[in-house]
């Protein structure tokens, strides 16, 4: 296992070669620039009296700042936590209370932290890169210098590389109720042992070129991205977002950037399967492994992707509590079986009954994991830690079994969790947000199966007597309490929730209500312009009145790639036929969609 000193030495030696460390869409940073940035940030930390054992919290849309801050804090022994910028102020406050950061680095326009009483450093709004001007200036404009001018005043200093293996490296906050946010404590030992396993399994080395544009506030985005690249002194490519309109450009980058490893989520594989125009994206002499992370990969999709793109899809199973993974399906034949999540590597796995007794092969039970990469516990949450870790075994909350050959299969979930587009969403968190809205008496949330996103969030609300809230008004209010991706895609207002003898909500009955409603909806829906706007407003979580045919994906922040797909799926089901791939990727405004749907009708 490497030490911080080894990592920093590698960084310094690579910096002489001007090799690319990280490449964003508009600019790239070589090792020399990254080393300088890390030193500058070391000086910045010293200026703010941050030392080994301190904590920083980062919340910014500036990916370069996020990456360099995390890497520099990692080398300096300062633990970091990265949060998404669309975090609600309620969740932000509860995380702050749990995490108690010594410094918050955040975008100056963020309002979620406005009531924070912790020291902070605000990142100035970056001036938009000019794209206008003469044709020639667009060609020759090379702005690749690190834009860390805000740290200019600080002296570049060598990082303090004295952190020990049991020191805290990261805290990753998983979905949970605001009353008890779960901050997963990852030590240097957890992190480095996991990175070693990844290297062994997928042959990472200094020549690797990783394509991973998963969000940096997600463990798979940060750990299997910049941190992995730093550990193996290789290169990371983070291109444009994987919006459907840019899918081809994104996939073409595999050839252009001579990618060796692509790390993605099942939702993107589903996008590729449905909307990619070609089959030869991985047909380069450089490409080695395609990894699917953060969520169960549907067996049919798995086979289709492998057959179509002529490349093996390796599945990585793990949770934030195991840094990012621990059970691997592929790349070697001995660890590969489609449909399974593979075999544990550098980890022990056992299947146990509800009573805790170990179960034999082919019998379903809860999956327990043990290894150096298993987390230390939840930050300031002894109760949750005790419930999740027993005798060094981590209770994953996933149900599964092992076959005769030792391959692990996931068959369900013992805990309530919705996985949508690779993101974990705790139903209790959504319910809690609903109950914060005045007028909501009871709430329940379930996951609804979805072909591309795996699951979508659907909630039920019981209103207090005399309250005149509607589904749309509730959905509009929810983003005040929830991150965008956690807001339900659909909401039912019901008179009462179905409860069992124990008083618990019967989720199966809620799913039946959804199923009946979907069938009815399909039969009754006739698409006219008004119905079209209603459909779209529901998917975008916006008021119908703000929509017009000229509304484009640029106008609404909620119109991201997932919402784009949801709109199309809804319109398809309303008009009763599927749009062509060419149509789907060419749609950039509501007018485009309306014209195509109307012409089809």
């Amino acid at each position, binding site marked *: 296992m490497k030490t911080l000193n080894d990592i920093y030495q590698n960084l310094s030696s690579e910096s002489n070669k001007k090799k690319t460390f990280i490449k964003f869409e508009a600019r790239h940073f070589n090792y020399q620039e990254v080393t300088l940035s890390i030193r500058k940030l070391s000086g910045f930390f010293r200026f703010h009296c941050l030392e080994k054992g301190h904590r920083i919290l980062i919340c910014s849309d500036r990916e370069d700042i996020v990456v360099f801050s995390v890497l520099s804090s990692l080398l300096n022994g300062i633990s970091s936590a990265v949060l998404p910028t669309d975090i609600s102020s309620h969740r932000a406050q509860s995380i702050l209370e749990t995490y108690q950061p010594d410094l918050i680095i955040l975008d100056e326009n963020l309002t979620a932290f406005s009531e924070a009483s912790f020291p902070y450093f605000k990142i100035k709004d970056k001036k938009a890169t000019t794209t206008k001007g003469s044709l020639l200036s667009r*060609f020759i404009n090379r702005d690749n210098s690190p834009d860390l001018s805000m740290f200019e005043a600080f002296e570049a200093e060598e990082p303090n590389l004295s952190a020990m293996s049991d020191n805290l490296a990261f805290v990753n906050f998983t979905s949970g109720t605001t009353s008890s946010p779960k901050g997963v404590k990852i030590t240097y030992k957890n992190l480095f042992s996991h990175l070693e396993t990844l290297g062994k399994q997928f042959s990472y080395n200094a020549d690797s070129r990783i394509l991973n544009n998963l969000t940096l506030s997600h463990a798979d985005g940060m750990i299997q991205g910049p941190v992995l690249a730093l550990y193996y002194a290789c290169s990371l490519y983070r291109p444009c977002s994987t919006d459907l309109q840019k899918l081809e450009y994104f996939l073409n980058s595999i050839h*252009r*950037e001579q990618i060796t490893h692509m790390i993605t989520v099942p939702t993107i594989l589903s996008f590729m399967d449905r909307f990619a125009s070609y089959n030869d994206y991985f047909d380069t002499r450089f490409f080695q492994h395609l990894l699917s992370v953060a969520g169960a990969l549907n067996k049919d999709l798995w086979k289709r992707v492998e057959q179509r793109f002529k490349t093996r899809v390796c599945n990585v199973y793990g949770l934030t509590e195991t840094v990012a993974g621990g059970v691997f399906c592929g790349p070697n034949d001995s660890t590969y079986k489609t449909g399974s999540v593979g075999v544990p590597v550098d980890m022990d796995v056992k299947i146990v009954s509800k009573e805790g007794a170990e179960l034999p092969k082919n019998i379903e039970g809860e999956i327990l994991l043990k290894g150096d990469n298993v987390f230390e516990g939840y930050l300031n949450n002894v109760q949750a830690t005790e419930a999740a870790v027993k005798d060094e075994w981590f209770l994953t909350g996933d149900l599964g079994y092992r076959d005769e050959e030792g391959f692990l299969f996931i068959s369900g979930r013992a805990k309530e969790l919705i996985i949508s587009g690779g993101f974990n969403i705790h139903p209790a968190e959504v319910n809690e947000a609903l109950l914060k809205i005045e007028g909501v008496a009871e709430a329940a949330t379930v996951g609804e199966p979805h072909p591309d996103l795996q699951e979508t969030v659907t909630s039920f609300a019981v209103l207090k007597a005399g309250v005149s809230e509607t589904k749309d008004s509730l959905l509009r209010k929810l983003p005040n309490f929830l991150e965008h991706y956690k807001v339900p895609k659909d909401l039912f207002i019901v008179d009462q929730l179905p409860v069992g003898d124990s008083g618990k909500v019967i989720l199966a009955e809620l799913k039946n209500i959804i199923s009946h409603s979907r069938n009815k909806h399909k039969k009754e829906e006739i698409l006219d312009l008004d119905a079209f706007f209603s459909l779209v407003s529901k998917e975008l979580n916006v008021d119908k009145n703000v929509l017009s045919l000229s509304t484009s994906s640029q106008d609404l922040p909620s119109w991201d790639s997932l919402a784009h797909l949801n709109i199309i799926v809804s319109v398809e089901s309303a008009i009763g036929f599927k749009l062509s791939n060419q149509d789907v990727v060419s749609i950039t405004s509501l007018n485009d969609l309306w014209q195509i749907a109307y012409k089809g009708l």
Partner: protein
Amino acid sequence: MSLIAWSLPKKTQLPAVSLLGNLFVLWFAPYAFVAMSISACLVYLISHAKSQKGHWVLLGVGYCISQFLLLRFLQEHSVDLGLGGSFSVLGVAYFTCRDVHYLVESYKGNVRKNIVTFWYYQSFLPVMIAGPINRYHEFEREIQRRSLDFDQISKGIERIIYGYAKVTVLGNYLIEHKIQSYLTQLPNQESILHSWLVSLADWAYLYAQFSGWSDVAIGFSLCIGIKVSENFNRPLSSKSLVDFWKRWHISLSSWCKDYVFTPALLITRNLFIAISLSMVTMGLWHESSLYYIFWGIYHAIGITLCRLYMKQDNEIVEYLRQRFWWSSFTRALTIFYLINASVFIGLFYDGLY
């Protein structure tokens, strides 16, 4: 050119390659450069105009074809425009096809507006002079996939040498200088056997020239980091005439299929008329003459007969298809029909005059 493509900063590489393409044409064929520039501007403006697109696209296609015919006429009749310099229509047959392709595809909504990529496409020197007729969306994709790969450059250089050897050693020296010269010295010049041998040598020469220059173009493109589709796929191994035209000058055949055959079939609902129109177009693309109109009709008859045969599923045909010698027979028949083209058309053509 490869050196320019890779030695400059990345953002200036393709502009430099395109500029070089423009300067090359401007220097060697200024008239073609002017024509190419006018039609490119027109095509781009029409393709991305906001209103009356259908009419404008038709007008644009009409303009491109008229310009092509005019330039061909001026060249074939050595008309002196009085502007000095030599008159050359370098690449006009190729850029006309590219322009029509771009117009129709933009009308179908398959082309995204990007003037820079369009300029790269129009000015891509490796395919400007001798094809292949590359497609815009494939070219756009290759731009997005382009990267410095010495393995590809090495393959590109190999391909250039291979292609150039095909043109010079096989085509110019062996076939033209040795075989065709030898055939002119043979007795019984009027015999049918002699005509067949001459025709076979002509096809072989055409193959060496067209596929050789295509290899050079593909090789040059690879050196710049752009992959261009193959233009020939072992045409002599064709099992039928239909198969042959899928393997011979693929970029032109597929262009005719997409922009002549398919629309003609949709309008007329008549297979023979649609095939005839595409084959005549293909003939006139090579040379604007009555001979090539007959050439087109001759091949249209062959392809139509072949298609009729392929549709047959009676017992005799099924029996024959299962015989091992049948595919050798159809291969031989395909070549026999091809080498008889010049013999029959020549007889018919001579009979007219």
